Every structure is written in C-alpha cells, then in structure tokens.
C-alpha cells in the first residue's frame, strides 16, 4: 500500500509539475541533439527528434492521468447513479433494463470498440477519453448495485422508509455513503486500466495526437529502434508498468484498509 501510494504520488507529482515546468519543451525538435545518452542537461537522454525523454515522460504522465481520470469520472458519474437506481428498483423491469443494458456494453470487447470510436470520430485525446469512459460505466454500475442490494435489506433503510423518505433520498443518504469504500477501491483499479487503455490507443495512433506527448506513442515511436536504442522503449514501458503497479498496489491496500473483514490481516 505504501509502495503503491509512493509510486502513484511520484507520477501524479511529475504530471502536476509538467503543467508549470518541464526541463525542455517537447514540441521543439532539435535534430542536432537526437539520440543523446543521459547527461546533466538531459537526465534520461533524448529521442530521435532530439526531444528530452524526461520532459516527454512528464508530459505523458499528464496526458495519461488526465485521460484516465476523466474516464473514471465518466464511469463514476454515470455508472454509480445507474447502479443505485437499479438497486432501488430491484426486482422490477427497470432493474432488468439497466442491468441488461450494462451486459450489452460488457459484451463488446472494450479496446476494439474504443478503436472503432476513435477511428470513426477521428483520433484525439477527447475521443479516447469517451471511448474508455463508456466502458467504465457498467463496471461501476455493477459494483454499486451489488454493494447497495444488501444495504436495502437493513433496518435503517426500513426506518428511513417509515420516515417517509423516497428511494432517491435513501440512495443518497443511506446507501451511497456506505458503499463509498468499494467505489474508491474500484476507482483505483479502473484508473490503472484506463492508463493501460490510453497507452494502447496511443500506441496504435488513436490517442492523443502530436505534439502532445503520450507514453503509448513513445513506445510506438521507439519500436523501430528497439535494437539500436532500447532505452527509448524501455523508459516509457517501465513508466507504464510503474504507474499501473502503483495504482494496483494502492487499490489492494485501500481495500484491505477499508474492508473491515480484511482489516486484521492488513499490513
């Protein structure tokens, strides 16, 4: 958990820093300084266009985190209300409609559809966000519904009904606060999946477009030079691994910490 938090904080910090300062401007090409080994001026060297690798990775972190964050936001913002709604209407046709709609989205291979969306509407960061976000909706809807169902059987929900509260109000006042733990954990996991998806989309050229830096495209660019200049592929690769690992560790740690049934065994 601590390692996860440190890794995540490191990348998030780099992304935030890149908003105000990067060592070198990544939009400026400097062919004379291409493929430099690490040096004080370029701590991680430069790529085949002479762009500073450290700056590229920092900018890439910003792109990845922004895409994944908004995509998770879409999933939370639409999926959780749907899940709560389905739980409130459990056993009725409405529940069926919502959950079967979810199954419908689940049935499509997410990355393929994301490629389709970006291919149809044009490759851009916004479309990548939408494509990834849509597939987050059913995940959160399912988690929210599953967690909400047992809460609806508890006496305090019955007491709230006796107090004349409607389903919407009970969902927000009683159910939602008691399932936030699960949602937070799910959000960290979806966040890491979002980062992977963004990297994959950028890798095939359907994510953020140049000159915006992106980990996935750095990998793609480095592919042709993997034997001559392996560090160009290894660095973004390690970065992606580090970020996803960090988020997964954080998610697992949070679950252990927040779930009272596992708390005793938590590190």
């Amino acid at each position: 958990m601590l390692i996860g938090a440190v890794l995540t904080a490191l990348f998030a910090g780099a992304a935030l820093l890149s908003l105000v300062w990067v060592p070198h401007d990544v939009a400026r090409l400097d062919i004379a300084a291409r493929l430099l080994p690490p040096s004080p001026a370029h701590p991680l060297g430069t790529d085949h266009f002479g762009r500073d690798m450290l700056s590229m990775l920092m900018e890439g972190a910003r792109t990845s985190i922004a895409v994944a964050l908004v995509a998770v936001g879409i999933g939370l913002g639409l999926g959780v209300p749907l899940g709560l709604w389905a739980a409130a209407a459990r056993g009725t046709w409405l529940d069926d409609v919502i959950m079967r709609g979810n199954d419908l989205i689940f049935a499509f291979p997410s990355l393929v559809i994301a490629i389709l969306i970006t291919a149809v509407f044009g490759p851009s960061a916004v479309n990548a966000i939408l494509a990834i976000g849509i597939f987050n909706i059913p995940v959160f809807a399912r988690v929210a519904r599953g967690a909400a169902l047992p809460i609806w059987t508890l006496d305090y929900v019955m007491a709230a009904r006796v107090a004349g509260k409607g389903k919407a109000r009970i969902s927000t006042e009683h159910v939602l606060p008691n399932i936030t733990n699960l949602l937070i954990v799910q959000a960290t996991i979806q966040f890491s999946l979002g980062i992977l998806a963004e990297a994959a989309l950028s890798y095939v050229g359907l994510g953020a477009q140049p000159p915006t830096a992106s980990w996935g495209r750095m990998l793609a660019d480095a592919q042709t030079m993997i034997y001559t200049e392996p560090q160009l592929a290894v660095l973004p690769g390690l970065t992606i691994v580090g970020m996803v690992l960090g988020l997964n560790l954080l998610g697992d740690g949070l679950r252990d910490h927040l779930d009272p049934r596992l708390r005793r065994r938590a590190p």
Partner: protein
Amino acid sequence: MSQTDPIGNDGPPRQLAAPPLITVRKLSLAIHGAPILNEIDLAIQPGAVTALVGESGSGKSMTALALMGLLPGGSTTTGQALFDGSDLLTLSERAWLGLRGDDIAMIFQEPMTALNPVHTIGAQVAEPLRLCGIRRAEAARIARDRLDRVGLSHVPLDRYPHELSGGQRQRVCIAMAIARRPRLLIADEPTTALDVTTQAEILSLLRSLVDDEGMALLLITHDLGVVAGMADHVAVMERGCIVESDRTEALFRGHRHPYTAALLAASRPPPHTPRPPDGTAILEARDLRRTYGAVTAVDGVSFTLHRGESLGLVGESGCGKSTLTRALLGLEPLQGGSVTFDGTPGGQSMTRRQRARISVVFQDPYGSFNPRWTVRRIVQEPFHLTGKPRDADAQAARALTEVGLTTADLEKYPHEFSGGQRQRIAIARALITKPQVLVLDEAVSALDVRVRAQVLALLSELQDRLGLSYLFISHDLTVVRAICDRVLVMQGGRIVEQGAIDKVFEAPAAAYTRRLIDAAPRIPAEWLAARNTPAATG
C-alpha cells in the same frame, strides 16, 4: 460448589459417578492482551448435559472454542483442559485434526449459514467420514443412518440446504456433528435462531442423543428455561468467570450468587396486569389480505388496537407478521381489506402527517442505524415527515433523556453504544414525532435478559406517561405476557386466536396456541418456589 452437594438427594437418577470426559482447570484466556476468561473450572461428564449460561460477552462461546482448539489469532491461554489425559490447550494443529469431528464436534447457532449451499446434505454429512478414509458408498450409508437418527428419514441425501427449513437444517448440522460418533458435542446456542416449537423438537433430539449414545453435551445458551429442561449440570458465567456451578435443580433451588439471582429474575418478567381498554379504537384492520403471486402471506386478518393498549402479535417465522407490520406502516400495498388509523384510512393512503403518528422499533440493534450518522441525525430522521421544527435539537435531546440516555450522546456514533442502548436510541427515534401508535417488531428479542427487562420497564413507563398504544410483535410468549393487555396469535397468515392475555395463556382455545405455550421452555415453578421457603432448600 460442585463437590459438596447438600441438596442432591432428591435430584434426578443420572449419577455422575464416571470420571469427567473433560476437566478444565484454571483456564484463563487473553486475546491480544485483553482478558476474556479468568480461571475457569469445569468438568464435563459423559452421558450428561453440561450447560454454560451467561449473557453475551460473558465468555461462554470462547470457552467452547478453546475446547475445540478454534481460538482466534492472538490468543494466549493458561491452565489446563484435560481430555484422555492430554491437555487440549497444548495440542498442535495437526493433533487437533485427528480430534475434531472424531472425539469433539460442534454445532452452531445459525443453521442458515452453517451449511454450504452448493453441496447436498448427504455430501456434507458424509464429509467428516470421507476425511477419515471411509469409502464413498460406506460413508453415504452412514450419512443416511445419521440423518435417520436425527429424524430426517423422509429427506433424500441429494437435497440442498435451501430446500430445507431452519429446523431441518439444524438437524443436518447435528447429523454432521455426530457422523463419527464424537464423545463430546458442543452446541453453541443451537436453538436461538429457531421457532419455539422447532426449538422443543431439536432440544429433545439432543437430549435423546445424549441418553442413547452416552455422548457428553456442552450446551451453551442464554436461556435459563432451556437449561432447566435440558441440563444435568449448570455453570453460570459472568464476565469471563464461572460465578456458580451445580447440578441443575440444585442450582435453581439454592443459587447463591447475586448474578444468578438477577438472571433468574430477569428471565421471568412478572406477568403484566391487563388494564381495561378505554374502548376507542386507534388502529383498526379489517380483513387484510396480502399476496405475492400465488402465495398469500396475510389472509383475512382483522383486529383492533385501542388507545393506550398493548396488543401482542405472536407467531412463528413465516406466519406473516412482518408482512402485516409493513402493510400497517404503509410500506406495502394490500390486495384486500382496509386499515383505519384514528378514524381515517390507514396503510398506504396515509398522509405524511398521519405517518408521523405511527412509528416502529426494529429487532436488530446493530442494523437499525446508518453507521455513518451521529445519534443527533439518526434521532431526527423522522422529522422528514413533519418538516424540521425550529427546536429539533432540543426535541432530540429531550427524546434521548426520555429513554434514559444523555444529551452528550447526541454527538456519538451508533457503534459507541451497547445493544440495549441502541434499542433505546431506536425508541427515541420512534418517539420524536410524538406518535400515538408504536409498532415494536421483535424489539427486545436480540437483547440479553437483564437488558431486556430494563427495556421492557422503559416501554411500560413510556406508555403510562405518554399514553401510547403498542403493537408488540414477538415470537417470545414470556415477553408478550410481561407487557401486553391482549394478544393475537397468528399462524399461516391468519389470526387463529385473540383475547385477553390471561385468558389466552391460561385457557388457550386454539390447538396451535396450546402447542406454542407447551413448547416454550420454562423453569419448573416448584424449583423457584423452594427459594422462598428456606426450609425446603436445606
């Protein structure tokens, strides 16, 4: 106290001549440094029932777990528990594997969760046999034999737990426990989750197993009535200590410890003296009918609740009393009949203002409150019906003081309170809108007897002071008798008998009522009468 037994002459014929199966000497237990048990001495005799009685948190379940080698992590024990000359407390986990199931077996309180829902009952009863290397066919034969023994001869082996009733499931658990004919069976509140008639059947089954197979039974219970009918020997536990132990009848007749006396007094609340009804109806139900598809849960129920009256509603699980409650509170639609509340249509057609005048207290003191809310917010929730008054905080404080809590409790969270205190908070929440009718849905069933007595006293006091009418729903006849003026007996969605409480108890008209009253475990009156005339105990 167990050695010298001046009043044992008139005891039952079962003599404890055989050496004890298990001798516990000065057993102390601490979990993560917190003391749980303190120098327990206990002897468990073969062919007899030893009962451990106490309230929740007294350490009775932990004693059982220590004897099963199933203590939670972080436990440290001192003392001895001798079984066949070896000390159970020092056995390795590997040695335990040979002992559990074979020599010592256990059944638990909740038959709904003690069985694995994805295996057939035959496979589950055969499992302990298969584990010790018995062949499949032979194991199935023994499983059949054991299930026949526990009275399930009509149930095939390939049934799944969900196809059985609660009582049948508990029988399967017993069959599993006795599959390898253990010498000691530990039963931890084996009938607490069951209906009173089912409880009587399970208890007599356990008794016959002890008598026929010479097994020792360690019965853990909070119910002194069960103890009186079942046990040969009783140990009373309070806060990790055995405060008193003796042969059953001797203990009831000659108990010395104040805690035993308090438990006995609280377990037999004095019968309520019925008051004449004042005649005006506050809540009237006429021919109520509630169906779920083809199932009729409530079938033509009619009754009247008068102003200032306590009306009991008694029935076993599945009789429709919860459905009826929800319909009366206007939470469920009715397919027939009408509810009249204070002269206007009740049930689902109540206005918010009317709904504020009928409140409810639920059974579970742990599930009744949103764990993330403060007591202030919890108690004020019903103001949703009336609109929050300007002095809401003052009213919440007053409601809390009325139920015996303090204003300081407003800022606390539910987990900071004990079960009894939580039930007081639930009552405060129900009272905040100044209702006329309070529906008490098994409101004291989950409480320890002494706490139960306190909450019952609080309820009577509130009724006298505020002129409330109670609809008191319970499966426990003792409690109903202690608080109600009249009683309704419900079976299969119908009211089979109703009348003044004394009449129903002393001369029940319906066969079902008689069955309920007979099945309720009770302490023989003469055991307690002897207490009042000291000459008889000497």
